[in-house]
């Protein structure tokens, strides 16, 4: 059993300095223990200029030169404190992890709250992903979505997040690491172009099923709770003519699909199989057809609806090959 705070003093120090393990279980208040500040390139340029000015003042005995140099140095030092104050007292809370198909963007949501003063120019950045700017008025709480690029299916941890700022003069950059144990699911990328759905048990033929992907609207029926959102006739709702669900030709009319690992062509590799199953699950969900799933290690009884679909996709995402497991 390995936990964040166990281990030698050295590794505890490493964790404190770099936050390499996901040790932040709850909300984190940024305090001086976490905040690092170093001069930026601009800060270094300014310090070099001030040093030159100091040497010149010394050489030419320019009292006012000393005064000017030290005045500007006072501003630079004061900017350091401002940078610190801009970070200190921010409360970061992990909110949610999203889901994505491999190759897409997985969104994590954190919330940032400003205790005390207004915070300006805060930038939040996951390890891989674009920086996100946050403005925090006094006492405000703001959700921040961090989109992380995904490559492979499975669990994807958010990893270490850097909160930084170079407010007010960009002479100093202050930053702090946050490492929440937040992880989202990456489903396999669906096969492109999608293979035809396997024939259903009642002889539903593959040809019609393939056409059904771009099926024609057959009509509307009354909305029943549980109908998927993308089937609701929103235009009708907007017109005020009540809640209706769109029905497509062929949908609902055929029997449940059986999606099974063993029915796939034997030459297919593991990832290719998962990709095809994924595409089929999505197609079945689009058509609102019930399906069952059987892959090594997992068997899902026939069902339909978003929750069932998510369970099936999760099984695919977390599938471990018998050889590798």
């Amino acid at each position, binding site marked *: 059993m390995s936990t964040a705070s166990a281990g030698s003093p050295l590794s505890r120090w490493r964790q404190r300095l770099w936050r390499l393990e996901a040790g932040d279980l709850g909300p984190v208040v940024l305090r001086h223990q976490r905040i690092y500040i170093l001069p930026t390139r601009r800060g270094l340029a300014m310090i070099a*200029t001030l040093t030159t000015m100091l040497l010149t003042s*010394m050489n030419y005995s*320019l009292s006012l030169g000393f005064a000017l140099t030290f005045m500007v140095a006072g501003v630079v030092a004061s900017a350091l404190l401002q940078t610190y104050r801009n970070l*200190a007292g921010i409360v970061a809370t992990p909110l949610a992890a999203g889901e994505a198909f491999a190759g897409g963007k997985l969104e994590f949501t954190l919330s940032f709250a400003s205790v005390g003063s207004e915070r300006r120019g805060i930038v939040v950045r996951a390890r891989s992903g674009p920086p996100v700017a946050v403005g925090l008025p006094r006492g405000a709480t703001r959700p921040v979505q961090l989109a992380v690029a995904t490559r492979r299916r499975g669990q994807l941890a958010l990893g270490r997040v850097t909160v930084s700022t170079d407010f007010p003069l960009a002479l100093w950059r202050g930053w702090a690491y946050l490492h929440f144990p937040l992880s989202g699911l990456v489903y396999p990328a669906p096969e492109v172009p999608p293979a035809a759905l396997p024939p259903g048990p009642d002889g539903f033929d593959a040809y019609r099923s393939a056409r059904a992907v771009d099926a024609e609207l057959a009509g509307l029926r009354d909305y029943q709770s549980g109908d998927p959102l993308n089937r609701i006739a929103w235009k009708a709702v907007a017109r005020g003519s009540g809640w209706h669900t769109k029905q497509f030709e062929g949908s609902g009319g055929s029997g449940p699909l059986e999606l099974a690992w063993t029915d796939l062509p034997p030459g297919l590799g593991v990832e290719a199989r998962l990709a095809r199953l994924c595409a089929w699950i999505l197609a079945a969900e689009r058509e609102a057809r019930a399906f069952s799933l059987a892959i090594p290690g997992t068997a899902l009884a026939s069902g339909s609806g978003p929750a069932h679909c998510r369970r099936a996709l999760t099984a695919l995402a977390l599938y471990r090959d018998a050889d590798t497991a």
Partner: protein
Amino acid sequence: MKVAAVAVSPLARSQFAWLAALVLCAQLPLWPYVPLWVAVVGSGLVVARLAMPADRRIPERARRWLLPVLALAVGVGVRASYGYFLARDPCVAFLYALVGIKFMETRSPRDGVVVACLSLFLLLTQYFYGQTIVAAAISLPAVLVLGGTLAALRDAPAASARWHAPLLATARMLVQGVPLAALLFVLFPRLAGPLWGSPADTGARTGLSDRMEPGSISELSLSDAVAFRVDFFGPPPGPALRYWRGPVLSRFDGFEWTALPRLHGTRLPAERGPTVEYTVTMEANNRPWLFALEHAAGLPRAPITDVTEPVAPPQRSLAILTDDDQLFAATPVTQTLRYTQRSVLSDRFPARGERDVRENLQLPSGNPRSAAFAREMRERAGSDRAFVAAVLDWFRSEPFVYTLAPPLLEGNRVDAFLFDSRRGFCEHYAGAFVFLLRAAGIPARVVTGYQGGEINPDGGYLIVRDSDAHAWAEALIGGLWQRFDPTAAVAPSRVERGLGAALPQGEPVPYLARLDMTWLKSLRLHWDAVNYQWQRSVVGFNVQRQRDVLKDLGLGAAHPWQLVALVAALTVAWGTVLLALARVRRIRLDPASALWSRLCRRLARAGLPRRPSEGPLAYTGRAAERWPQSSAVLHRIGDAYAALRYGPRDGASDERIAALRELIAALPNTRRMRSPR
């Protein structure tokens, strides 16, 4: 990584405006000190770039060669203007233009930072040419604009943003930084001399020189510049006694009086009679001599600060006293120098022996009429003393005119002056007088220095200006060097009341040397009093003053590392106080959340971390399954926390928090939980 991404984004119009304001703030104070064409080119480029539409940029190809070519051209031009390049003034002029050129081709925030740094340095260079209160005052807004520029370069201000907001923010930072700046100003070690070779062109102003040709002192007399200021311990002596002795000139070549090439001996002055003591604050003049009232009765010492009674602790002397009674500093006075000096008010002092006689009888050939006149007069007078009195009488009775604008003389200049033109300034009278004495066989020499000075009623100190420059004579009679002032014979009021009283109407007397005490002049005197304080406490804050201040603070004997530690400690204290003022206290989570986080950490240590998606009830439920022996407590914890967190707020929350705390405390410790079942 991120910086590079920002660097390619072009500057917005508002950022250009800020940058231009900063560059102009740095350039304008230098206008009088750089060649006109440099000023026009350097500032013109800035204005021209600003007038261009922001989106019209110089093409990349042109941009690449524009900076080097323009910089080279300006460099060549500066070299041509000054005749040399590697010195302070040409470099300032070059930098002036370079900032303009760099601004011209600026397009990214990164270029902007380069321009800002160059401008900041340029801002410093104006102090080469003067460290007045005005120079300091115009630097302050420039520092504010620097802050505004940096803020604008960090984040282009929105069109709706108020332009003065960054100035106010910088002003706040400036005020916060003042204690630190003051601390460094006082404690940062000052150097006695320059770090690298003494720059030849420091300070354009020079006072008296060690040579005197016709016109040299009258030229100096046209200047209002302050030579030095004097604070007397006790009442100041009257104007006729205020002869400030400077270079002594013993050699004459028929045209020019010069000092002896070598200084003779170092003597300790003897105390004779009552003395006056005073502190001189000398402006830098790049000359080695210090001034003392005739005659010095001691060596100059570091000033005694804040004492009314003169005390004489043994101190390192700042200068030596030569045989001809001049004070020579070890190095030229390149920064404001303060020293305390003691003098005996007397017009004579003992000669040093044979050499004085030998060196002060030499005369070039020429001026036969004067030589004959002197010999004849000596015959008639009978004694040296009578002869000198007769010569002074002759000056008094003949129609000599004291004027700043004497005619130019050729050939035998002394003859022409004494018998033809009879119009001259003090250098003419002193020179001719010494000539006559030497021709009559009396050792004599010219003494230059300052005479008089003006008491500033506003502060009670004496101001001695270049317009008080004077030349008088000294004759060796009966083993004593005695002062004679032939100018006083011609124009007695020069000595009593100064230049303004002595010169006829219409002469170009410097404004402040005039007698009428108009309100403008009194205003100038008030201003001078303020300036004197400024000079003494700010500009003149050098090694010596620093030592005094440290001594006053009780740090006189502190080691350098102790001072460094002091600065570090005070800096930390400064930061702490500022942060405390800003009320960055330890920010606490609300107590319920804090307790919950603590519980989560404990259970995680025991091997059951909370899943991010798990709420309190689900988590404690899972924990209860894992540790059945504590399941009742765990369930109650979950309920209590959920009620606190999500339930309605009521007055009893404090008690419920206490209850939650007790529940958590009731859990067995982590180690026991780690080995369940």
